């Protein structure tokens, strides 16, 4: 089956600093892929490069079979409407209410009438588990966890096939993080979403990721399900997946 995202020979560099070199990665349809790696290995840079906020120095990125570097603006827009992005702190527009934030893409790209927009925004607010009264609140009146849920609702506004999540559980308390994990899993299952998730959260990796890709030494060193990660011999992987925090996360999973 055609992968949703196909990256071949990607090279990203800022000045002399090479972030990715000869990086290959496939993201399959309807899977949740977790991206891990030490600080500064370019996980977020990879996400930003795929969605077109950074320009790669070399290499090819295809999303839904479309090479974005070659695409004309109309083709690009068509692909952009099929993905949603959740930035780290939600990146909600601060001058709009939560519901208005969710309505922005519907209004801008689809020209939906206000009544239908309001109905669908309410639906998304309920889907991400926000209370109905959150719709009329401004982002500054929300807690961090609620902002992330609202950001997720906005990224789901056009019913995308693919969503990008940048550290979705960072900064949430363990209960909030676990709820958020379950929310992502449930949405992915119910809506057939493909999820590309940058995370550091071992619990998320354990609980909801179908496959994990490890960024190290400027490329994807290994990609596969959790079981493969645990068997791998590379010292960094051993430390990451067998360290004290990893053991705690796995115990929880078993128990």
């Amino acid at each position, binding site marked *: 089956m055609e992968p949703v995202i196909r990256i071949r020979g990607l090279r990203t560099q800022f000045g002399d600093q090479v972030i990715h070199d000869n990086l290959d990665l496939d993201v399959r349809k309807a899977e949740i892929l977790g991206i891990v790696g030490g600080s500064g290995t370019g996980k977020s840079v990879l996400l930003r490069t795929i969605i077109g906020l950074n320009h790669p120095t070399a290499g090819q990125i295809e999303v839904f079979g479309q090479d974005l570097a070659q695409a004309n603006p109309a083709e690009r827009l068509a692909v952009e*409407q099929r993905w949603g992005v959740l930035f780290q702190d939600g990146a909600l527009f*601060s001058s709009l*209410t939560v*519901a*208005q934030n969710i*309505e922005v893409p*519907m209004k801008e790209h*689809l*020209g*939906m*009438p206000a009544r*239908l927009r*309001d*109905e*669908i*925004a*309410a*639906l*998304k*607010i*309920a*889907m991400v588990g*926000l209370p*109905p*009264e*959150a*719709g*009329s*609140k*401004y982002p*500054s009146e929300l807690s961090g966890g609620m902002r992330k849920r609202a950001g997720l609702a906005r990224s*789901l*506004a*056009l*019913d995308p096939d693919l969503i990008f999540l940048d550290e979705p559980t960072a900064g949430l308390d363990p209960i909030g993080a676990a709820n958020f994990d379950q929310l992502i899993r449930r949405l992915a299952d*119910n*809506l057939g979403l493909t999820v590309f998730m940058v995370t550091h959260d071992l619990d998320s990796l354990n609980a909801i990721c179908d496959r994990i890709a490890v960024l190290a030494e400027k490329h994807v060193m290994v990609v596969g399900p959790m079981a493969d990660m645990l068997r791998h011999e590379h010292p960094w992987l051993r430390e990451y997946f067998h360290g004290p925090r990893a053991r705690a996360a796995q115990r929880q999973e078993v128990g």
Partner: protein
Amino acid sequence: MADGWLKVGADGGDGLVLQAGGSWDARNVTRLDLQLRDIRPGQDLTVNLDQIERLDTAGAWLLFRTLKECRNLGGRADLAGLTPAIEAMLEQVAANDIPAEIEPPQTNALVAVVEHIGAGAVDVAMEAKQQIAFLGLLLETLARTIRHPSRLRLVPLVHHMEKVGFNALPIVGLISFLIGVVLAFQGATQLQRFGAEIFVVNLIAVSVLREIAILLTAIVVAGRSGSAFTAEIGSMVVNEEVDAMRTLGLDPMEVLVLPRVLALVITLPLLAFFADMMGLFGGMLMCWGALDISPALYLERLQGAISPWSFWVGIIKAPFFAFLIAMVGCLEGLRVTRSAESVGRQTTRSVVTGIFLVIVVDALFSIFFAAVGV
């Protein structure tokens, strides 16, 4: 994939038969929504879904809403051709059918206007109160520093003097020079009508020295340095640096505010002097070029036109203006709340308040100098 479509069949006595097909997704719902809203509510409905190729939450919402409204009006609504995927999607939507608030509640427009005026007035009063409190705090810090001069942060002081004083020389000089040129030219065309062009020197000398040079310098500095103080201190507040300072036993008044205030109080009189010279120089060039008043004659007239007080009246005001601009700039910076948006808002406020206070105090000085007769 085909666009979503909906065909409305005839009512064969057994209710309306709707045939839905194609892709019922977010890209198609605008059109489908219009079609569905055209159907008169309250009839019995059968919706045939067997030709739907794709259904997302937006499309599922339309189906769900149509059925719900029909049933609410006592009609019968059935679905035919359900697949497990469609059923799951409809369940998903049904489970999340919770109306949400979209906009904050609106109040009556008249009430909103009154409320706005009231809030504005209270805000002005609160700000005035904070400014007075801050003035007290600043003077107390200043007194403490005078008693223990070793507490003064010399390096930041010099750094700020360079930034607010030395680096402002080109812009302040250019503006004053041009104002000197403009005054000479405008004054000369008016005075020529009385054959009194020579008095243009008096005009330039008195207006530049007493008012224009210092006022323009203060306004430029409020825009340039007052805003910079607010933005610098404000972004430190956003970043929790100011809180961190307090927990480390550093007094932000002493570390951040005092060096900035002193730097401006020291440099603004020097800038004003520079502006005086550039203004007179601009006037001189214009008189020479356009009015044939030679520099020698210009300087001679200048000496006759002014007394030392003309000069001092301008310079004396400088430290007061500097104090106001720096105080407002720092205070607005510290009033920033922890959002990036508020840095921008307070910076605007700092410039507006700074210029406003400068002009009010300038007016008070005019009254004072008129009363004492200089």
